[in-house]
């Protein structure tokens, strides 16, 4: 049988993969895509917990719903900021955001 542990493990591994993407990607769009994976990993954990442990209130399912909404909003703001960056730098590679340092 599938247990809650299966789902949680899946979400943990997914989170780790997403985190790896955030750390290694050299394009800000790709980094944001990896962040989306992170958010989905959290959503899976919420939904699974709700399904197994919270039959009365299933708050986790609602939480997962809200995560989807929030992820969309986050991405739209992120992309808008990227556009302003692109106007200045002509690129959205992480190389172009290394001017301020120290």
């Amino acid at each position: 049988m599938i247990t809650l542990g299966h789902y949680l493990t899946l979400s943990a591994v997914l989170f780790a993969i997403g985190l790896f993407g955030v750390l290694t990607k050299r394009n800000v769009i790709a980094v944001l895509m990896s962040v989306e994976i992170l958010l989905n990993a959290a959503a899976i954990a919420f939904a699974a917990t709700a399904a197994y442990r919270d039959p009365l209130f299933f708050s986790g399912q609602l939480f997962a719903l809200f995560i989807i909404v929030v992820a969309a909003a986050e991405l739209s703001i992120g992309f808008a900021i990227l556009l302003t960056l692109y106007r200045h730098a002509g690129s959205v590679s992480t190389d172009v955001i290394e001017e301020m340092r120290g």
Partner: protein
Amino acid sequence: MSLVAFAILAGLILAGALVVVFSSNIVRAAVALAFTFFLIAGLYFMLGSPMLAVVQFAVNAAAIPILTLFIIMMTRSRSVRPASGIFVLVALAVVIAFAGGLWAYLGAAETQVFPVSPEGIGLRLLSVTLFPFEVASVLLLLAMVGAIVLARRVEE
């Protein structure tokens, strides 16, 4: 049986995510992301929440990858230069340690899934969760206005 289904689904999800993370072609990564999210919708079906699955499909598996593709086109991003080797190794080490740490703390043995109908979710959404629901609407409005303000061209 369902364990086999889960294993296949999970394997595909992880494979999709790995493609997103490792592909040096950003368009391919975006498509893989859509694929991954689509499969996650399947996961929600298995968890007995068709409502969540549908929303996941509509927003995460369809809208977001399309948005991503748009922005990829607008910024003329094609390929992603891979990170330098040493950094990849460091990141890998961190991630493995992190995943190992998390995994050690996970593990729960419940087997019974309690399905939730869309009506159930809807009722709950508009009763106990009404306040966060309204807040989410403000959040979306903010994102919309923010995106417009930042992205629109200024006539000089």
